[in-house]
């Protein structure tokens, strides 16, 4: 296994240092100054220019109930770098690759902005970056080619977490994990992270916390996630799919139904022809 993230939501204090460190290192623009009214979350979702996003889930006890029953869950979400990545499968240009660290990486100079990956991600992670925004993030364009060359098209290109490919190349920890003050985001070899995470779950469970790992030892079509999470409530509460499904898993059924339809049409045509001949 390669490198990835273990995000332990029980250690998250919602400081959003990961969001800021990510945007600063990758030179991504702010997405606007809109007040959401949704707890302390104003960036709302992962997107083409938001590669770390801290979700705030309020579970407040009513005033009559003991205050100890209130919870405020916080989770720093990120690209999962799936073992079987929907975005990669869908990419027609080969822009999305699995790099030497076993992470899913979009080569910005190859991407043509078709957007197939956007709808193929079962987590809704990938999004298109508008060229005007992308010009801020030219930092990771390779081979000295100007990002403008790669971006003479209206749709821009696809953007998502690179797992700080450029930082990993020189032995640095990704910006978000480096900035996290409470070690809620841990970076490293995924096997080692999993071993650590399992111990953590055991410890929390023995203390009565309903903790479990999300994206580990799964039989999902995505396979295990290189960025996995320790959660204390159902995945849907964190806006994560209970069972992520790759679009390609529908392909067999799709082809089958297509073939059936073709066969049916052929039969019908044959029947018509026959009746005409008759």
């Amino acid at each position, binding site marked *: 296994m390669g490198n990835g993230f273990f995000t332990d939501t*029980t*250690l998250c*204090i*919602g*400081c*959003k*240092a990961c*969001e*800021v460190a990510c*945007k*600063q290192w990758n030179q991504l*623009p*702010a*997405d*606007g*100054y*809109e*007040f*959401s*009214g949704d*707890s*302390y979350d*104003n*960036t709302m979702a992962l997107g083409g220019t938001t590669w770390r996003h801290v979700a705030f889930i*309020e579970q*407040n*006890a*009513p*005033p009559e109930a*003991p*205050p*100890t029953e*209130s*919870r*405020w*869950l*916080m989770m720093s979400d990120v690209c999962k770098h799936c073992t079987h990545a929907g975005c990669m499968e869908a990419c027609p240009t080969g822009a999305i690759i699995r790099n030497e660290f076993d992470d899913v990486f979009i080569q910005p100079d190859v991407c043509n902005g078709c957007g197939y990956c956007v709808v193929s991600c079962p987590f809704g992670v990938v999004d298109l970056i508008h060229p005007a925004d992308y010009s801020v993030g030219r930092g990771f364009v390779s081979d000295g080619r100007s990002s403008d060359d790669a971006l003479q098209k209206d749709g821009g290109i696809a953007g998502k977490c690179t797992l700080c490919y450029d930082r990993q190349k020189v032995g640095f920890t990704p910006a978000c994990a480096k900035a996290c*003050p*409470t*070690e809620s985001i841990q970076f490293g070899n995924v096997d080692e992270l999993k071993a650590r995470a399992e111990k953590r779950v055991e410890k929390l469970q023995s203390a009565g916390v309903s903790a479990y790992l999300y994206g580990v030892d799964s039989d999902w079509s995505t396979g295990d996630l290189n960025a996995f999470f320790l959660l204390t409530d159902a995945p849907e509460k964190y806006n994560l799919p209970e069972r992520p499904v790759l679009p390609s898993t529908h392909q067999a059924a799709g082809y089958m139904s297509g073939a059936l339809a073709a066969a049916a049409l052929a039969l019908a045509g044959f029947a018509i022809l026959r009746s005409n001949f008759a």
Partner: protein
Amino acid sequence: MPGLGTSFGRGGATTFVQDLANSDCILIEGSNFAECHPVAFRFVMKAKERGATIIHVDPRYTRTSAVADLYVPLRSGTDIVFLGALINWVLSNQRYFKEYVEAFTNASYIVREDFKDTEDLEGLFSGFNDIKDTEEIERERGKLSGHEELQTAPGTYDTTSWNFEMVEVPRFDGNGTVKVPKRDETLKDPRCVINVLHRHFARYTPQMVEDVCGMPGHYVEKIGTILAENSNRERTTAFAYAVGWTQHTMGVQYIRTASILQMLLGNMGRPGGGIMALRGHANIQGATDIPTLYDSLPGYLPMPSALRHGATLKDYLSVAKPTGWWANTNKYIISLLKAYYGDAATPENDFAYHYLPQIAGDYSTLPTQISMKDGNVKGYFCIGQNPASSGQNAELARAGFERLEWMVVIDSYETETAAFWRREGADPATIGTELFFLPAANILEKDGTMVNTNRLLQWHDRAISPPGDSRSDLYYIHQLGLRLKKLYAGSTDPKDRPILDLTWDYESDDPHERAVDEPSAISVLQEINGYVVTPGTPRSECPQVAGFADLKADGTTACGAWIYSGVAPSKTQNNARNRKGDDWTSLGWGFSWPANRRMLYNRASADPDGKPWSERKRYIVWDENAKKWVGPDVPDFPVTKSPHEPAKPGAGGLDAHSGSDPFIMQGDGRAALFVGNALKDGPFPTHYEPVESVVRNAVYPQQNSPTLREWTRSDNQYNGTQSPDYPYVLTTYRLTEHSGIMTRYVPWLAELQPALFAEIDPELAVEKGIKNGEWVTVSTKVGEIEARALVTGRMRPLRLGKGKRVHQIGIPYNTGWLGHSQGDTAGQLIPLAMDPNVSIHEAKTLTCRIRPGRRSAYVSGGEVDVAVPSDERTSFGESVAHGIDSKG
């Protein structure tokens, strides 16, 4: 911070944040630790992972509450009742750390017979003088210098009776006798401090907590039990607080209540224990050590005062404590005068003591703000501060700027203060103030130190040159000094001598810096450290002193701030640059005052005999073979003084203490449960309601602090007590995402919290027809602001006992009209009122009203003193009188 200072000896956090990882329990109250100090909070999370219990008590459920093991809400402004109830519970159930309390505190001292407690006098201590009659107000006014508006302190205390009964004992040298406090080691005497303390807090019961704080009473026993189980030989509890405790008219007494509790639990000076005073800004500790305060000189030496001291150095020194560490005051003040005035400070002229200004009134921020508004301040330097946004009664501050002749703002960004003349409602054509805005370098663009909450000096080098015309603050101050000296050159007027004789030798040796007139920050640090004066030799060639133990009272040493002495012990050594850390005390990282000591009062980590209280909590111990104190930190005690050394009555300095008196700054070497007359509002903490409150004081007939200071005038009106127009509690705070103007210009931070909001509980929102995300208008008698509604169950309506339902509204304190994240400022809602000890404002608990929709437009104030920007605001009549309430 006299709450800690009077209790233990020094006004700084008693421990360091890394050590919180060793706590078995951490009580966080008056602080939103996780949000406001996220980096330091990692050590709380480490403690939690080790199994420590984290308790958070706060009016709001915050990001700190979210990771606490136990969160309990309380009504803003009632912490003394809750903490007092814990003290009562600990004493009533004999759950205090008996050996610690008996050996290390003044529990056994006998209080004077004529001392009367709040139990005897319906909420007042003995000695109260109500100075409300005009004649006395006039007399009081006479004491103040000239122009300033009298703060109508409702009354003051004659503190004579707040003291101990004294007995005569033979002097250590047999020469007659000396008076020392009388003790009863059996703690049986009803006038023993511990018994007086217990009586004082007897009425702070779980029921009282329920009635006043709105917290279910059983939490007293629950939290008391957790604290007691984690406070003994084997285990320790730490307390952490921030401005949620300090910014009250009773602020100092909040800290005192926590201090008393920590003394009783025996947690002071021990690993995993102590009181962590969290500092709100990066260099706030440094700004009190080398103070930007009007009444303090570097190193917590008092500024000479025409009211307290006399005209001579001898008078000044006669006020200093003869026993304990402050017996060294003469060395520190004389070395400071030598640093200031060099050769002009001689033994013959009292080391130019008369050059120092003598204060004759309160020149702190709030009175100055009032003076400015009244047209009595001519010019104003505003450096690294933004009162137009973060000030209390911010509109009064802005209106004050309009009356200045000139104003200098030095900052990295255009602040609301610099832009006051074009704020909403202002008419620039009518403003005569000449404004100079000077661009400042930020921290990465200049050399210098920051002093953090650990009392830790950390040096930073300039990484890049500042852009454009931006310069370091040091450059501006240095130039100001040079130009003033030039202006006064050749003057023979004696009053100009302090400027002409001021040492001002900070030129850099670096040709690049010299080329741009940038002074040398390291040269300033070296002067702060201190040096041996060699007549006729420039400072750059004088040897540095190794630490404050080398300072002398004869003018042969100079030192800019004795507490920092040791930071630069030679011309080539800068300990603030040290970067050798470890997992704990990290003595090789930076330099922490005093003497690179990380944990204060650490002698108390050993029992009276010098043995560790337990192996688990071993820290500083007496090594019988080596005959010295040893451990992972610098001992906060004379290193070779045996734990069995007897006290020498009548001796000066630390000889007056025994080897088992750990609090070396105190006159008697002990932590003070009873602080005598060191504070102006009482030797014990007492609950009074805030200036603005939704209820009457249920603890005593006395409503507000009888000694608080306030200004009742048309531009500073109070909502008073139980005003039907202002029925909700209002509290203010900051967010992780913003500090103020620095962060509002950063797009990445502004998008995270893009607007001012008001946190409102769902019940109140329904009652007022307020919808989440929409505009609301919040108002008090001094102002009106609009914000977006954030309706959340994290705000819980509280029920006081079986009676009143209390709604609390929270508004962050970091917005203004500049930057990307914009909004009105919470400071516009807060009238000026302050505590009598440190002039701290009351910004954490107020009353307000709220309605859906946006506010009306601000209009120019026009006539001075009736600057009431909104029509709506003037319709609520006279403010309620505070201070002494008519009884009954």
